[in-house]
């Protein structure tokens, strides 16, 4: 098992429920600014794109952390890889913020690095996403689904050309 947080941009409506629930779970308040997942809505193209930590295989934030606060663990139940922050070890130096090319780690009001921890194995954003744009699935399944979608489209045009 190797579960991952999968994003389907085509389904995202930009409702920000993921941000609301994320901030609520981690900070007990509704505040998209403190969420660890962010959805950018491109109003003029009407496209919404959720961005969240991809739990890098070779995480730069982990590599650069001078206090050893960031480590990668594999969750026993789901096999999900999580790059996580040990709040007791974090000194708030923000090197991880500099290192992350995607802006998916931040230093919050508590002076400690904050990032997606997959909610310990049951991501709340996935639970509440109303259109299923966010899913917590086996990594392989995600690709299978994409391939099947493409295959369906190809099959459709093949039938038409027959």
């Amino acid at each position, binding site marked *: 098992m190797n579960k991952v947080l999968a994003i389907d941009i085509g389904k995202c409506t930009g409702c920000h429920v993921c941000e609301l629930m994320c901030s609520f779970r981690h900070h007990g308040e*509704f505040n998209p600014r403190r969420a660890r997942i962010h959805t950018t809505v491109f109003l003029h193209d009407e496209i919404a794109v959720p961005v969240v930590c991809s739990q890098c295989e070779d995480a730069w934030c982990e590599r650069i952390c001078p206090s050893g606060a960031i480590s990668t663990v594999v969750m026993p139940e789901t096999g999900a890889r999580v790059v996580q922050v040990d709040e007791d070890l974090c000194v708030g130096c923000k090197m991880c913020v500099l290192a992350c090319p995607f802006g998916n780690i931040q230093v919050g009001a508590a002076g400690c690095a904050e990032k997606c921890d997959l909610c310990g194995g049951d991501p709340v954003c996935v639970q509440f996403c109303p259109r299923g744009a966010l899913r917590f699935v086996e990594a392989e399944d995600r690709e299978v689904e994409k391939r099947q979608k493409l295959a369906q489209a190809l099959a459709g045009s093949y039938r038409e050309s027959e």
Partner: protein
Amino acid sequence: MTYLYGGTILWVDLTTGTTSIRSTLDYAEKYIGGRGINARLMYDAIGPDTDPLGPDNVIVFGTGPLSGTAFPGCSRADVMSKSPVTGLLGDANIGGDWAAELKYAGYDHVVLTGRAEHPVYLRIRNDLVELRDAGELWGQTTYETRRLIQDELDDPEAKVLSIGPAGENLVSFATIHGSVGNAAARTGMGAVLGSKNVKALVVRGTKGIPVADPEAFLEACKAAHDQVKGADYYEEVHTIGVTNAEYAYVLSGIEAGGDGHEGLDFDPEGRTDYNAFWNKHGYKRTGCMGCPVHCMENYSVPGVGATVISCELYTQLTWEVQNADMLLWYALIRQCQEMGIDNTSMALTIQWLMELHALGIIDASLTDGIAMEWGSKEAITAIMDRTIANEGFGAVLAGGMKATAEYFDAHVPEERRGGRSTYWYAMQVNNNPMYGINPRLTSMSLSYAIGRRSDCIQDLDMHQFDSVTAPVYPGWSEEDRAHAVEHERELAYELTGKERAGDPDTTEGKADIVHDMGIQTGIADMAGSCKWHTKWLFLYLMPEHYAAALSAGLGRTVTPEDVERASLRVRNVERAIEVKMGRRRENDTIPEKEFSKPVSRGHMKGKHGVSREDLERMKDEYYTLRGWDLRTGVPRHQTLVDCGLKDIADDLAELGLGLEPFELDAGGADLGAGEKETAPSARQGRRPGT
């Protein structure tokens, strides 16, 4: 710590450029928030002499305690001002992303007073509040304004409400736009902002919304989401959307009413088929912040661009004006959004002109040489352009239907007008152009007549709506339809205790349903969530759900009865405002020409045709439920006192509008002989135990 609320109401005096704040909690318990607190602020701010487009008018933007939380549909802001359209209370509600952001900045309401000397925009970033020069933005579309402001502030996350050129040009039915597809569209709120030289309100907030009991609040939100998602109608709205439902309504004759449609077949090839348009140009469903429903659709049309469309927009600039060109329709919708003008008002105004033209009452010489032929592409586009620019004949139209009728009446001899004012032919309530919803249906006529802000949406009796239109919902079998109709009938009976309440062909029980609907939608409006999630759209969030979320969030007990009472209270505040502006029983009506005429086409052809007597009887029942005087429609002194509005009761008395109990009884006895009036109760009409 302040839970759920941002905590402050921000006052901005545009004339002096100064700001002040006041605690929201002064109002919160009694009026909850959103439309509720807005109404109270408006009652204290405007009077009969207030010029809607003068510096003495006030415009209020209000969020609710649940705005910005994970409660379903938590995206709404309510905008209130004195309306340049009706001269009464103006009110419009907007979704999108702005309301939540205002809460995150620490504010619940923003009140704008006075008039800025030159174009400005209000910028709020947490505690920073400033008026910035908007000279460069003046004349820009709503789409562009948002982008330009985000660029100027170097903040792509800034949330913007803005007016377009129509608002700047003081077109009376101009709108305020938020994120694409969202507008505070009705009653001319954009013109008020334009008159104050305010181009936009820009907000960015980084503070959070804390709740008193996170666990209980989460449970309340989950329960509310489950309720919405478990509703029968959810799948329909969620996957097919309300524009499709709108198409169904049009085919059934529920939508696009009016004489203009009689005997006309403008679309024999079925070009207005919404599904065909959606399949070709639609690509995704979308919705507002925090919404599990997603009632809106994304479209992209090559050469025109992308936008978001929902619901009634389908009907107006197609069927109402006999235009079968869907690409033209799409371009016009986009133009309305970019220019900041109300699609409904514009379409119904054009429809009126076309009808007058068809009847031979007006000709091109009165309309800048534009021949107002039914469905004429040239006429529609030219009239819209001129109205937005407030130029030529457009300057007459920009003043609204009544002003336009005065102009026509001065130029057209009486015999050509059938001995009537041209105003008689206009589809309006208190000068507010009507929706496409057909006022010839029993409870629709009541919804229009008593509607706050002079339209039907708030109090719309969707029960009746559905029981007659269900046959055409896509994807529903005959069995589904029969089930839905039966279900709605049962609910109507349960609510009113009247056997035929769910029957479309009678006035029985309609006042109860309309009254109840007003209470339900009022609760959502006060909470800052979307009224579509109430039983109004069969998504069935009930007072219990709001009360549970408010209790958990605020850390004090709020009962379902509390929120219902607050809704009744707020409606009385609004009625008191309108009464102060001059609204009386005789203003609660639909256009005279619509009486006693059956629906002219569709599945509903030949049905209904509400008579004046029908409507007056329903009004009697409705006023009785509300505790309003039957003779005048003014809230009775005791009603206001019972609602906890003694100061307003006394105020009305001082203005000579207060009706002492003995006067009322006399008035009531005249009209409703033998009818016993009682103080209003939210639960009234329900059978015991329901």
